[in-house]
């Protein structure tokens, strides 16, 4: 019974926890569609959020999209949906169409960005976004504003120098930033055990003078609880937190990968049983916020959105080749036109 009100205890309304579920389902639906499109030869590349939706939903709901900056990484589809992107925006990106708000189709899918939504433009070289979030947090501190900055990355990426340098600086100045590590156990084919020798990525926080927390990333409510505390601490001048969400990547690294060479099917099947979508659905059924019928309707809605988005994105015009040389630098003409 106590469990029944978990989301209420955490300060989430019924609608909010249902929304959380909705974004997770929508993200999964978009993601699955991309794989289909890729396998059908319609889009050249997919990089997935599958398995990490719960962690991202928990994190996203703890942030305030009206003021907090995020520097997401390529798996954060669910997070950017919470931040206002849509099936359509992400499918436009997948098809590399100029209407894509992330990059006008210039970047691969999964390379998010949107200035008006405070989604800092991301790139492929891993870890570079970590100091960017810290820089945004520095701006908050310098101007005395109460926004926080959030940055996510994989456990493999926590080994990059940029993570270390950025975390160190954030620690010294107690900046309002949350480092969110989505530990999905693999960096492409290299397992956690060959990526790092400490038990938890979160253990590294001690080396930067702030708190590190490990959380079950397959439990969006638990992630929300931990993230909420981290965000509040940051907003109130308490400095950074390193949150490590233990997750699992349910599909290959990307559409170019074949994960059978480095992990067993049993391991993957086992992980699927702990899928955060399955778990949150069960919770919602348990607390009576969802029925199988409602779930089916919700999934149909997601599918409808994705179908519509796919149709739209596929038909949307390609970039005019003449735009290739645009926006290397500020352009007077264009500049005034914005």
């Amino acid at each position, binding site marked *: 019974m106590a469990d029944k009100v978990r989301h209420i205890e955490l300060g989430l309304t019924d609608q909010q926890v249902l929304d959380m579920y909705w974004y997770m389902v929508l993200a999964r639906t978009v993601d699955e569609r991309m794989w289909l499109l890729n396998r059908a030869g319609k889009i050249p590349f997919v990089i997935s959020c599958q398995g990490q939706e719960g962690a991202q939903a928990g994190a996203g709901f703890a942030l305030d999209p009206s003021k907090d900056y995020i520097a997401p990484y390529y798996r954060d589809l669910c997070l950017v949906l919470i931040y206002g992107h849509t099936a359509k925006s992400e499918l436009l990106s997948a098809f590399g169409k100029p209407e894509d708000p992330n990059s006008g189709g210039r970047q691969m899918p999964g390379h998010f960005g949107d200035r008006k939504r405070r989604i800092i433009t991301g790139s492929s070289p891993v870890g570079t976004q970590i100091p960017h979030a810290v820089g945004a947090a520095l701006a908050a501190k310098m101007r005395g504003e109460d926004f926080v900055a959030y940055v996510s990355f994989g456990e493999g990426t926590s080994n990059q120098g940029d993570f270390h340098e950025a975390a160190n600086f954030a620690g010294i100045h107690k900046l309002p930033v949350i480092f969110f590590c989505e530990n999905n156990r693999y960096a492409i084919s290299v397992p956690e055990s060959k990526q790092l020798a400490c038990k938890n990525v979160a253990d590294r926080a001690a080396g930067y003078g702030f708190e590190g927390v490990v959380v079950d990333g397959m439990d969006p409510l638990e992630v929300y609880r931990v993230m909420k505390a981290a965000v509040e601490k940051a907003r109130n001048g308490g400095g950074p937190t390193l949150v490590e969400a233990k997750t699992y990547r349910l599909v290959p690294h990307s559409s170019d990968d074949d994960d059978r060479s480095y992990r067993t099917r049993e391991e993957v099947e086992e992980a699927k049983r702990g899928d955060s979508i399955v778990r949150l659905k069960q919770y919602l059924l348990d607390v009576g916020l969802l029925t199988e019928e409602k779930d089916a309707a919700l999934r149909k809605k997601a599918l409808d959105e994705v179908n519509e988005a796919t149709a739209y994105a596929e038909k949307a015009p390609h970039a005019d*080749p003449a735009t*290739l040389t645009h926006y290397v630098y500020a352009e007077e003409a264009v500049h005034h036109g914005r």
Partner: protein
Amino acid sequence: MAVKQYIEAIHDALQEEMARDERVFVLGEDVGVRGGVFRVTAGLIEQFGEYRVLDFPLTESAIVGVAIGAAAAGMIPVAEIQFADFILPAVNQIISEAAKFRYRSNNDWNCPIVIRAPYGGGIHGALYHSQSMEALFTHVPGLKIVTPSTPEDAKGLLVSAIRDPDPVLFFEHKKLYRSIRGEVPEGEYSTPIGKAAVRREGDDITVITYGLGVHLALDAASHLEKEGISTHILDLRTLRPLDEQAILEAARKTGKVLIVHEDNKVCGVGAEVSAIIAEHALFDLDAPVRRLAGPEVPAMPFSPTLEKAYMLNTDKVAQEMRALAKF
């Protein structure tokens, strides 16, 4: 002679050098169990074990830095950078350290490492899986830069790179990996670093290029032949040191030079080639030295239309060649 893919030739060079000399080992991201994301190192871990085919954590600066240290202690590391774009975090180790080990120690230490990296576009890799990185390093004394265009050279030059007592950057054009096949000599051989190769003899115009550009130029040349234009093609093969003599000979041969590369133009390798010609063969020229290079944008986009607009192709090369011939 066996016919091999470009990528097979690279694999074979690694495999044979590792078998020949147990100091040689491979390190990089996903090179072991997965055999590399392009599968260049496929099968090596089974043959040589997990230390000589070392799955490295996701840290390029350490890949190169650890390779340098291992070399200092007597090993011959061949580091793989998964995509040339991701060599940038390792630039400090490459330029401050590897390139200067011998010079700064007055010849006491040296740095016999190889850094392999797939580069170039046209594979829908977008901004960060398509870049050409060679110009940045070609500027740097202490490094050698190799960009083979054929399977034979890919193998022969990689063997030379591994045996070279100084640091060699070995850039492999991704588009050539499986699209280019060619004869590869049986048995052990090596191709000297620092020597360009004439790929086609001709009298009207000279194209100087490397990597993918060689194939585009060869294609374009056979079209132009039908139009009565005879093309001389020089494949630089090594960008540092440049084969100045071969460049000047090729320039003088026709007096009309087009330099072609995918990397962008400003301060690129073509600038140096052009400057060498302007310095030493100016009065042998019958036309301005032209350069056809990637456009001056930060990198090629994902959008298929923009990627196409960015990439060189036979038509673009042929068009420049025609214009030069007509000059």
